[in-house]
């Protein structure tokens, strides 16, 4: 089982789906942020899995994964900054209440 790429990929897919669910369903900006982190990690898992199963990819895999982590970090920074900024204006982290821009 740990011998089958499928297992890893399915696992990552699952994580990705869960993340997307969180993103679609949660109201709190920060939990949406966390969901995105989940999704990014799902991708990382896939990448690592590819790396560990395909010879050619092995060295690159780790690097790419690292990059992805870094990107995730950057996104998180920006995201949290924005969240805080809007929180200052709206006094609520609940995204579905930010709907003065519409139609």
């Amino acid at each position, binding site marked *: 089982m740990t011998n089958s790429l499928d297992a890893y990929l399915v696992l990552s897919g699952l994580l*990705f789906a869960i993340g997307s669910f969180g993103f679609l369903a949660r109201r709190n900006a920060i939990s949406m942020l966390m969901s995105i982190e989940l*999704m990014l990690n799902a991708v990382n898992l*896939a990448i690592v899995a590819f790396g560990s199963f395909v010879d050619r990819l092995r060295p690159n895999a780790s690097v790419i994964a690292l990059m992805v982590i870094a990107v995730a970090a950057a996104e998180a920074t920006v995201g949290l900054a924005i969240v805080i900024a*809007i929180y*200052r*204006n709206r006094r609520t982290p609940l995204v579905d209440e930010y709907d003065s821009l519409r139609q």
Partner: protein
Amino acid sequence: MSGQDLLTISPLIAAILVAVAVLIVDLVAPGRREPALATALLGLGIVAILTAVAGRTPGQAFGGSYTVDALTTFLDLLFISIVALTIAFAPDYLEPRDLPIAEFAAVLIFALTGAMLIAASTDLLVLFLALELMVLPGYLLAAYAKRDSLSTEGAIKYFLLGSFSSAIFLFGLAYVWGLTGSTRVADVAAELGKIASGGAALSPGLALGLAFMTTGVAFKIAAVPFHYWTPDAYQGSPTPVTGYLSVGPKVGAFALILRLFVGALGSLRGDWLDVVIVLAALTMTLGNLVALTQNNVKRMLAYSSIAHTGYMLVGLAAYAGGRQEGLQGLLYYGAAYTFMNLGAFAVVAALQRRPGVTSSLDTFAGLGRREPLLGILMTLFLLSLTGIPPTAGFFGKAYVILAAVQAGGPLTILAVIAMLNAAAAAFYYLRVVVYMFMREPATEAESQRHGNLVWAGLWTTSVLTILLGLIPAPLLSVVSDAARALGS
């Protein structure tokens, strides 16, 4: 990593340095905007020169992950002018709202580096990173008026959906990489070439990857049904930022498409042709139909920018339909769209100089009387957006349509749809003209003074808008070189 490499990526380095320099200047002379502005614009000038120079020696760096060719140069210069113009338009808007210009410029230039990287990168990973580097500053800029709740709201929507789509895109990227075994565009293309030539079957996994990537990109260019962020983000953002967002990231995303879908996945175009056709039709139509009902000019222009994405997609579709001209048309349209749209937003920004002025249609009532020049320029940009000759917008449309007609088949119908859309679009563009020249303002607003930078920018955009329509030949050769550089 050789000296040659350094020369090749010198524009990039220069850009980063400019960004840093701007910040330093600001630290040195805090609160004064002229030095920062000067640094930024001069720096951009240098970057442009370097780009031109580097463009003379096409080649690759970093083992083929960074390519300099006609396309790169063309796009880079386009991006630089976009950023320069945005910086020119910004101060008049930011200062009254006491928002600093330095950070603005710096962040913007960081975004520029991202865009330039996209234009140049021939490596999937680099592409992704570059994309992030382009959009992350975008999120920040959208929220730049941080005490304005609308700005931040638009920003957070933009950010959340943006990173959602990034995740999706990345997922697809991972699969494509995993199945082709390389991040190098060339290798990927070769790998897929086998598949296209029937050497191997297109595996579902790869298809999945393609689907995810397409979705991610479609989001970035704001194609329907992935466009939702556009109106809100555009309306919320500070107007100069909106102007930038409406062209910079869009053209950037198209650059990504060129590098990725054309460069890497070109051999599979038969597979994504249908998808692009559908996307194009949907995008044009929805964008225009909704724009018809908007009373806020910024929001209206947001929807119109969606529609223009649709027109550009027609070019892409024509390419997928087997016509090199499609790419040329796409590039030409991109350039034309850039200047006319930036110009239009610049006028809106100029009108909003006084804080508190909304961008609703009523703001434009009587503008033709109040500030005739501004009114006339706005009319020019709107006519160009409509596609009335002799303007850039017209020629861009004609070019794209020509490509579509050449490709024939379903694309002819797409061309007709595009034209009907253009006709419908005329309604809302001209409505602004109606307000400017044929309606009297409800409350008499006094005319305002605008900075020289703004005027300079407006003249540049308007002159280009006309020239690109009257004398398209020069740009024409440029874009055809660019398209050829991409190969087909």
